[in-house]
C-alpha cells in the first residue's frame, strides 16, 4: 500500500514537473501549448470521498494558475471536470462502474481513450473561454480547444504509458 502511494505521489510530481517546467515553454506551431496535468484528475482512483476529490481538483488548478498567471481559469475548469467525472465514467464504463472496483488506468485502451478525449475537451473548452473571457471569441476558443487538445491528448497518452504500473493488480 505504501509502495503504491509513493509511486502515485512520484507520478503526480513527475506530471506537474513536466507541465510547469517543460510543456509551458513549448510553443508548437507558434501557439500550441499542451496541457497534460488534466490526466491526474482523470486517472485519480474512483472516489469514495467526493468532497476531498473536488477540493484536490480545485487546489491542483490553483497551483497551475499561480505558475501561468491565469487567475482562476485552471481552477474553474479542473473543478468542473472533477464534478463531471462520475457522469463521464457512467457513460464510458456503464452504470455499475462503482461496483466493479474499477481501475481506470488498467482499463481497456478504447475506453481510456474516450475518457481522455471527453475530459480534455471539457477542460480545454472551459479553460480557453475563461482565458478569452469574451463571447465573441468563442470560435477562437473552440479552435484552441481542438488544436491544443489534440496535442495534449497525444502527449497525455505517451505520459500515461510512461508512468503506468507494469504489474496488473
Amino acid at each position, binding site marked *: 500500500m505504501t509502495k503504491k502511494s509513493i509511486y502515485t505521489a512520484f507520478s503526480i510530481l513527475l506530471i506537474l514537473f513536466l507541465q510547469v517546467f517543460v510543456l509551458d515553454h513549448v510553443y508548437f506551431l507558434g501557439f500550441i501549448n499542451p496541457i497534460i496535468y488534466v490526466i491526474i484528475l482523470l486517472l485519480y482512483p474512483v472516489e469514495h470521498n467526493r468532497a476531498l476529490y473536488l477540493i484536490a481538483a480545485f487546489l491542483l488548478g490553483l497551483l497551475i494558475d499561480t505558475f501561468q498567471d491565469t487567475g482562476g481559469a485552471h481552477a474553474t475548469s479542473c473543478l*468542473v471536470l472533477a464534478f463531471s467525472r462520475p457522469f463521464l465514467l457512467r457513460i464510458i464504463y456503464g452504470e455499475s462502474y462503482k461496483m466493479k472496483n474499477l481501475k481506470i488506468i488498467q482499463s481497456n485502451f478504447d475506453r481510456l481513450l474516450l475518457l481522455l478525449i471527453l475530459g480534455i475537451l471539457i477542460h480545454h473548452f472551459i479553460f480557453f473561454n475563461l482565458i478569452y473571457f469574451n463571447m465573441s471569441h468563442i470560435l477562437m476558443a473552440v479552435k484552441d480547444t481542438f488544436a491544443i487538445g489534440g496535442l495534449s491528448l497525444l502527449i497525455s497518452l505517451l505520459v500515461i504509458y510512461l508512468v503506468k504500473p507494469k504489474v496488473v493488480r
Partner: protein
Amino acid sequence: MQQIINFLIKYRNLLLFLFLLVISISLTVQSHDYTRYQFIHSSGNFTGGALSSKQSVADYFNLKQVNQELANENAKLRMLLDGLKADTLRIDTTTVIAQSTYKVIPAKVIKNSFLKKDNYLTLDIGEKNGIEPDMGVITDKGIIGIIDRSNSNYSRVISVLSSDLSINAQIKGSNVIGSLKWDGQDPYYLSLEDVPRLAQVKKGDTIITGKQSTLFPPNIEIGTITKAELIDNGAKYKIDVQLFNDLTDLGYVYVVKNKILPQLKEIDTLGLND
C-alpha cells in the same frame, strides 16, 4: 430544521462544488481587471523560486547568444558615448549618473507568456532591489511592460501584450501622439490608435515612446509602421506597428525608475484641485 440539515447533507458535494466554483470564477474575473489586488500570481516566493531555478538551468543553453547581444549593446552605447565625449569629458561619470532622471536596474526574465489575452512576465528582482509597482520595463530594442506587483525577491510585469494596457507613443520626427495597444492577435505587432486624420503618417516611420509617458523615458524606439488605415468615417488613423523587440524571446531586461515621478504626480493633482 431537520429538513434543512438533511438537505445540506444530501447535497453537500453539490454545495461544495458551487462554493469552490464561485471562488474560482471570481478569481478569474479579477484577473481580467487591471488591478494589483490579485490573490493568485507568479511572483510569490514559492512560485518565483521554482521558476527561477528552472530558468537558471535553461540559461546555460543560450549564454552565447546573450553574450553577443550584450556586446552589441555595449558597442552601440560606446558609439553614443563617443558622440557625447565633447560634453562629458569635463564631468565625472558619477555626477552624470546622479543627475539623470531615470534609474536603470537590470533584471532577468524567469517567466514569459505571449499567447493569452493578458500576458505577464516574472522578473528575478523585487523590493530588495528597489522595484516598485508602476515602473517601466524596457530592453535595448524597445518596451516590454510595466511592473504590476512585487514582493521582496520577485516582481511581475504586465506585458505590452495585454488588452488593458495602453502606452503613450509618438511618431519619430513629429509631435503626433497616440496610444499603443494590443489587439490580442499577433505578438509581433501593436496598434497605434487615436492618431488624428491630418497627421503625417508614412509607412516605415519609426514609433517612439512619447514625452507624456511618465513610466518610460522618452525617445525609446518601439517599432515601425507597416500599415495605416482611416477608421470611424475617416476621423482618425489606426496604425499597425511592427515591434523591434521579439517579445516571445526575452532574456535580460531593464527596469526604469523615474526619479521625478512623485514631483510630476504632485503637479498633476495640483491641476485637478483648481
